[in-house]
């Protein structure tokens, strides 16, 4: 029973791995893998020397770091706040609402963002103008300076509620006696969060942090493709994955794009190993 599935995994997951070899070839459409000439590191050199390289690397790293520094703690904060809510109905409603965006596709989220930020009576511009914060509508999605903020904010909007599930469950598993003891000792809710809740969910936080660090070069793909439709934004929006897509699928530079993709994969694996090593020092690891 296992064999057909294994074959399946071999065909759809391992055969493409063989395809990474094409990064070292001048891949030709009609020659396929077997008849394309080998060119060594030519495409890697071209990628490192291209004027796009530093731009793409900067965007990849900055966007991931922003997502890590702001996007990672956000669900933890939400879980901590939800845990303080005593009205069960209120808690359940807020939770259900917070999951909603997770179930929407990026296309739809992109449509919402476009509609909210639109200069043509978008709600955000209407609000800003009513508050007299700006005299004329701002075209948010065509100003490079705003792009990172919009990207990270949208990501948090979409996934914060769903990501909070795990932390809420971890909090629910904490022994209530700890809280009682703390409150008898005179600790307020804030102190209790600080001294009991956070230390108790620390292992969960660390595991998710390692996963996030291992993902650091995955700055985004769908979200950027959807939100950065305006070419003006390319200088701040192009990350390795979108670059690979643009070069490979849209411009048919298969080998060049595969080289860029392989470079990313190698660096990612290195980062994952590094993060795991650091985590092992802190007392928990993935493997």
């Amino acid at each position: 029973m296992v064999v057909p599935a294994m074959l399946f995994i071999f065909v759809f997951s391992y055969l493409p791995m063989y395809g990474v070899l094409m990064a070292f070839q001048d891949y030709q459409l009609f020659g396929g893998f077997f008849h394309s000439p080998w060119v060594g590191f030519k495409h890697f050199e071209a990628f490192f020397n291209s004027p796009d390289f530093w731009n793409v690397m900067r965007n990849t790293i900055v966007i991931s770091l922003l997502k890590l520094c702001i996007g990672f703690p956000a669900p933890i904060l939400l879980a901590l706040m939800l845990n303080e809510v005593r009205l069960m109905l209120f808690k359940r409603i807020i939770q259900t609402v917070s999951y909603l965006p997770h179930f929407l596709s990026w296309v739809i989220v992109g449509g919402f963002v476009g509609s909210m930020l639109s200069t043509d009576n978008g709600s955000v511009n209407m609000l800003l103008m009513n508050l007299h914060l700006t005299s004329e509508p701002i075209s948010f999605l065509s100003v490079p300076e705003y792009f990172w903020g919009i990207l990270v904010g949208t990501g948090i909007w979409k996934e914060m509620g769903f990501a909070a599930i795990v932390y809420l469950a971890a909090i629910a598993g904490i022994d209530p006696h700890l809280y009682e003891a703390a409150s008898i000792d005179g600790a307020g809710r804030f102190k209790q969060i600080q001294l009991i809740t956070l230390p108790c969910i620390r292992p969960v936080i660390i595991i998710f942090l390692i996963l996030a660090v291992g993902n650091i070069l995955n700055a985004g793909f769908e979200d950027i493709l959807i939100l950065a439709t305006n070419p003006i934004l390319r200088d701040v929006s192009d990350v390795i994955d979108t670059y690979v897509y643009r070069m490979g699928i849209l411009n048919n530079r298969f080998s060049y794009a595969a080289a860029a993709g392989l470079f990313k994969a190698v660096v990612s694996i290195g980062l994952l190993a590094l993060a795991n090593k650091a985590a092992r020092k802190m007392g928990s690891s993935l493997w």
Partner: protein
Amino acid sequence: MMKLSAGDKVLQVMIYTVLLLLGFITLYPFWNSLVISFNVGSDTALGGITFWPRSPTLDNYEVVFRDSRIGHAFLISILRTIVGTTLSVLFTAILAYGLSRHELMGRKVYMVFCIITMYFSGGLIPTFLLLREFGMMDTFWVLVIPGMISVYNMIIFRTFFLGLPAGLVESARIDGCNHIGVLTRIILPISGPVVATLSLFTAVYHWNDWFSASIYINDTRLIPIQTLLKQILNSNIVTDQLQKAIGSSAAAQDRLALVQSVTSKSLIMATTMVATLPIITVYPFLQKYFVKGVLIGSLKE
């Protein structure tokens, strides 16, 4: 309940306020789009539509449903979601069942073989070229087959299967039941919550995925709704869509009046709502399952 100090009360008030605000920010874009989709387009263009439709209408939806491409894309999405979810959950469960059996020789090797694919992959370009060499471009199956086995879901299934009492399978085997029978008649029926969760996640993936269709499919008859919506958002085919709606219609003149009040924005919002509705109506009811499912997944091994 314990008594709250003054500081605690301040904290409580702050938390409720922040959560209410968050809830509002989460819901508002959705609500606003819904309102715009029910408002006369030419009126929306005047601005000021926030919480309620100013001049309610169903015209936008009429135009959307009149457009055969949208209806067709909707059907493709439904078909893809049903076929894709069924195949994926079934085959992933079969693999997980196999790998959960102790009598399987070398199951550790098989597991490693599977898990490696979670960390290493050929990447976008080689996968794209492979599928093209297989001649899968522009077929319905390219949307369903490549992602059919999910290693992540397999691990969740397997962890759950391993937790079931071993005697269950053994007694069925002694009674002469083959493995397929054990899986479909005994294991899957008692795995309700896991099957429900993984089916929901797989279905959401299939319903929401626009990217694979955008690179693997050119044939307009195979475009799913999300991909079509993306094309609509990115281009001016909206006007084209409007013309089609008037176009060959017998009562073209009647339609003209209708269509003049519909703008691209109101039309996009109506299409968006159509593409969102199936999921929005289901997920609150499945909440208790997926909360459990996420936990099984995160506490593995």
